[in-house]
């Protein structure tokens, strides 16, 4: 593959497991995906599906005792899995940055946010304190923080959730990373502020040339932000593909059910919402065979012996379900009229 076509991030068969039950419990199994230059890729799944574990493993940030990370994750061709801690730390912050659901985890309460962003810049570049502050103020302004010079002098707890989230994104971008991993960056925010932050993330591709791996549980966020999407269920990939395809022709019953269970804001109101019965299994009690089996409306004998392998469906779409290969694929979704004004 020519170098300019090489994905920025290429993850193959990433597995993360922790000791337990007298053996190893897989938290994340065989997750594969790539993120190209200036692309936003969505990682969706319900809570506990392994989104954060995947992200933390990529960043070398899982420090749970006895944890095992296998598989491969190449960033610009450089292998991240097994990379020495020091080299990873250099990469982190300079080339890859991460933002979290709770901005308080990124900031320490005892310093002003400006001071913390200055330090982050100075850790990676030789700059005077003054030059660093100038950059900090400019970054905050770019993130839409009003009165950035004064806001920089405030402490994290003195800012609203939306402003803190913006400050955290400013800090993450302070060293111009090429890849931003955003773990539920808007989950704790009001929709009005979420819309502003998503707009900001979409703009980063052009303003900073950055790619984003966007972790969320909200299919609406994915639809509006990500060109390609990966659906996780119980630590495994259920489906991946171009977002348009996934929404129009989901090949995995979980993707389809997830989309159907969202109440429509427009159109006729269903008498009952098509809910998915039961709850996702925890890693300890994952059933044999397809992990979605116990909740799947299409479950049958061939689903049960082993987890179905991820198989290509069509242009760029992959699904871990036996239905397509058995010649009984899901019907296309009647495009949600109910979702549009």
């Amino acid at each position: 593959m020519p170098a300019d076509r090489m994905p920025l991030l290429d993850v193959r068969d990433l597995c993360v497991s922790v000791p337990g039950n007298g053996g190893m419990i897989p938290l994340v199994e065989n997750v594969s995906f790539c993120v190209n230059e200036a692309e936003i890729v969505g990682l969706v799944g319900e809570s506990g599906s392994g989104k954060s574990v995947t992200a933390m493993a990529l960043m070398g940030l899982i420090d749970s005792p006895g944890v095992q990370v296998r598989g491969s994750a190449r960033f610009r061709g450089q292998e991240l899995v097994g990379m020495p801690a020091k080299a990873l730390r250099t990469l982190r912050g300079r080339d890859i940055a991460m933002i979290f659901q709770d901005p308080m985890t990124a900031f320490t309460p005892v310093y002003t946010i400006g001071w913390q962003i200055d330090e982050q810049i100075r850790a990676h570049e030789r700059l005077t304190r003054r030059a660093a502050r100038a950059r900090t103020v400019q970054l905050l302004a770019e993130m839409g923080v009003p009165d950035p010079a004064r806001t920089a002098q405030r402490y994290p707890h003195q800012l609203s959730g939306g402003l803190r989230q913006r400050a955290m994104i400013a800090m993450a971008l302070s060293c111009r990373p090429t890849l931003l991993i955003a773990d539920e960056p808007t989950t704790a925010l009001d929709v009005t502020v979420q819309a502003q932050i998503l707009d900001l993330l979409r703009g980063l591709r052009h303003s900073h040339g950055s790619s984003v791996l966007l972790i969320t549980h909200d299919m609406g966020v994915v639809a509006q932000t990500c060109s390609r999407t990966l659906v996780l269920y119980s630590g495994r990939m259920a489906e991946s593909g171009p977002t348009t395809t996934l929404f129009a022709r989901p090949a995995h019953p979980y993707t389809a059910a997830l989309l159907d269970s969202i109440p429509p804001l427009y159109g006729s109101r269903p008498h009952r919402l098509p809910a998915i019965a039961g709850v996702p299994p925890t890693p300890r009690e994952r059933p044999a065979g397809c992990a979605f089996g116990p909740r799947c409306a299409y479950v049958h004998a061939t689903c049960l012996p082993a987890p179905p392998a991820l198989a290509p469906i069509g242009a760029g779409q992959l699904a871990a379900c036996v239905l397509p290969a058995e010649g009984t694929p899901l019907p296309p979704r009647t495009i949600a009229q109910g979702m549009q004004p």
Partner: protein
Amino acid sequence: MNEPTPVLELRDVRKTYRLPHGQRLRAVDGISLRVMPGEMLGLVGESGCGKSTLGRCMLRLDDVSSGQVLFEGRDITTLSERRLRPLRTGMQMVFQNSTAALNPRRSIGDLLAEPLRVHPAADGRRRSAAAIAARLHELMALVGLPASALARYPHAFSGGQRQRINIARALALSPRLVVADEPVSALDVSVQAQIVNLFADLREQLGLTYVFVAHDLAVVRQISTRVAVMYLGAIVECGETDTVLHTPAHPYTAALTAAVPRPVVGAPPAMLLRGDVPSPVNRPAGCRFHTRCPQAQARCSAEEPALRALRPGHEVACHYPLPPA
């Protein structure tokens, strides 16, 4: 024609918290509304706008600072706790944080039996152990949990199941009014749909009246017959669900609905509202929304718009309401 008595009526209710340094936080700032029998009123608005505070005031779980609260026509604003107690069976709350609402050291059966032991039955007599046990089984069936759940402890349940338990507890005394504070916000979508359906089923089976607090507009639409939109402690728009959500008259409602990320690829990027909600300690003079309103004009920062009926059943507090689409 005689209008039926509202199950709940608020008349200019205010709730002010006193903060250190003599500051006052007006969490609920002059709210009047009526909830009619069988109605499901959705209460929406951004974090901190006063939804939970209003919910607690409705049920007299918090004392109001001024104004009146009427339950089934009876003024309960200043009733003593003793005189309120018999009325409490008729009105119940499902709390925002389902985990914190359940004592981890008590079994589900024990938790649910408590209100049944404390409050006498309809005939004024104490309930027998057998009657309580029968009611517990009924409640489990009602919320879709196995009877075996009664012997277990809260930690053994998932978020969705814990919310079912909370609902069962609220229903134990057969209330007529249920105020549910963000009962599905912490749940995953697949489970959220189950609980939304449960609320709809319970309304049909038991003829309940709900006030349903949520920040997810699509969830509110699925559940409510009427919607009230709150901003900084006040209702800025109120009316029939689809009228308010689809042809909003208040610029804030319009911004709120536009900001919902719709699960449709290529949906137009949401309209952006500038800035954050101002602090309720220093709420803007004039229209409380004018600092963020794209339609604001000179009059808006000087004069506060009153909540008035645009047409029957559709109220808005704005000097320049949006035209119907």
